[in-house]
């Protein structure tokens, strides 16, 4: 009789223990995946999709908590495992989409940086020909502006290096605009003096002030 009872109870006990075990390992693995997506930039580059992923994870966690609150015999983590599996299935897709958007932003930033470098180079070439005319103050200011633009190109590179592509692109565009304005200012000055080259300052005391 005892043996019959044991034979009847054993599968039941196994079933209860199997269904009653919370999927803590799978939960930890899923949470790590979502964190990886965040670190990959999903919250910045795919904010809405990342919010959905977080929503799915929260629902899975809530389901686990609900089951934990039940009496051991009545716990069933099947649905929680399904929800966690859904999150794990979506996470790599989100990471891939994030990488794609980040690559696009990086490409835009690089192109803007290249365009800015070209614009600064053209402006510098014109500044070298800037006439030292009556408006000496303007010439000195133009030289300062050219120096500042060159320094700002370094700031663009730093933003790209730190993967802040939004700032890099905005700064590069600003440098490009200013370089064009500077080039136009120098061209205007050159046109006034007929394109004459700047005369280097003489070394004698006569012209030193």
């Amino acid at each position: 009789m005892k043996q019959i009872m044991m034979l009847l109870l054993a599968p039941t006990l196994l079933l209860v223990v199997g269904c009653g075990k919370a999927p803590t390992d799978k939960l930890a693995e899923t949470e790590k995946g979502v964190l990886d997506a965040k670190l990959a930039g999903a919250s910045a580059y795919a904010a809405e999709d990342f919010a959905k992923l977080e929503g799915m994870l929260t629902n899975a966690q809530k389901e686990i908590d609900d089951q934990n609150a039940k009496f051991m015999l009545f716990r069933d983590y099947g649905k929680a495992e399904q929800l966690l599996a859904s999150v794990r299935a979506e996470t790599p897709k989100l990471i891939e989409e994030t990488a794609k958007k980040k690559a696009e932003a990086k490409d835009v930033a690089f192109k803007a940086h290249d365009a800015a470098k070209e614009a600064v180079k053209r402006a510098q070439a014109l500044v070298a020909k800037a006439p030292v005319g009556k408006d000496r103050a303007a010439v000195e200011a133009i030289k300062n502006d050219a120096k500042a633009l060159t320094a700002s190109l370094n700031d663009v590179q730093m933003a790209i290096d730190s993967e802040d592509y939004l700032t890099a692109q905005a700064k590069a565009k600003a440098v490009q605009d200013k370089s064009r304005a500077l080039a136009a200012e120098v061209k205007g000055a050159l046109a006034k003096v007929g394109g004459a080259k700047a005369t280097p300052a003489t070394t004698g005391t006569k012209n030193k002030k």
Partner: protein
Amino acid sequence: MDRCSSLVLRTGALLCALTVPLLAACVQQAPPDLVQSVEDLDQQLAAARGAEFAPEDYRQFVQHWVAFKDRLRSDDDVIGWPWEDNPFETDLRALYEEGSRVLMVATDRQNTERQGAVSNVARLERRLRRFTSRVDRIGSRVALGEQRVETELLVKQARSFLEQGHFAHSVRVAQQADQHMASQAARLNSELSRYADKEQVARWRAMVRRTVDWSKRHQAAALVVVKAEQRLTLYKNGRAVLSYRPVRLGFNGVQEKRYEDDGATPEGDYRVVRKRDRGQTEFYRAFLLDYPNADDQRRFQSARKAGVIPAEARIGGNIEIHGEANRQLSETLGCVMLSNRQMDALFHEVKVGTPVTIVGAVDVDNQVAVVLAQLDQGNDDPDDDSADSQDAPAQPDETAVEQS
């Protein structure tokens, strides 16, 4: 018995025939049009950047929506009587209401942020225009070095972020630009504080008075240059007879002269030591001054000892009052430059030994002091039209003052 069995069978069949359709009609499903409506709402929220402008509300909506979609995907059927509410429909309507509310909140906040960023950038650009105009008015563009362009680039970035819809970025960069301008204003105030110093201005006024008195006592000509007004006045026998404005100073003219090539026009009591006529100077006609005098030498040595000027710097010389270059090109590193016609008017009045007094200002409300105060205040009230009129450049003035 047969009749009884037959009756039971027929009754059972009738009951099944009635029950099965009834049961089938009670399996409740999510109305597809409502599901689509909530899907569409989800897309609208993504387009409205719900996660950015209503993060908490959006997160909750998404959580409920995802949970509902999980219920749909599961195999559980919901059975209910036809007169009972469909829980899927009820939940979908609740979701739709929630999503609509979140969309309204996100859209309102986005509009508010946009309007804030738009007015902020407009204010900033106006402030930069006024700042630049005022700095140029006192000839201090070069003094600010590369800081000017750094500020301009920040303002452009603020505009660029605004146009791309990144309002928080725009506001953050605009704040940096404001701080830059405040820092530049502080720097100029520090370097040019002499112009707002009553005692200093009184000392300058006294210098001018002494020169004018000398002119009267010696019945001779004297020249006075006031840098803040960019004005040169010829006195004869103690009376002003000619006045020119604006005259050109060095590229850092209003600054205190410290060393050679710094672009500042020196301040002090000088004399003409040589007159250069046409053909004797590249600047048409010129009066060479005795800069550096003893005071200049003393100041230079003190500055060098204090380390405020580069160790290799020289005091320089060759400060003149001169005309425009014969060539297309000329250099002004601290001289006072007039037009050739003006030099013609002065040339025969001025002799070797004529005193030339150069001061910063003779009035505490001089242009440099006024501009410094304006730069300090920011003065970016959009309704303040007087600020723009104050920035208008002064009209040229060539006055021949009649002797009584």
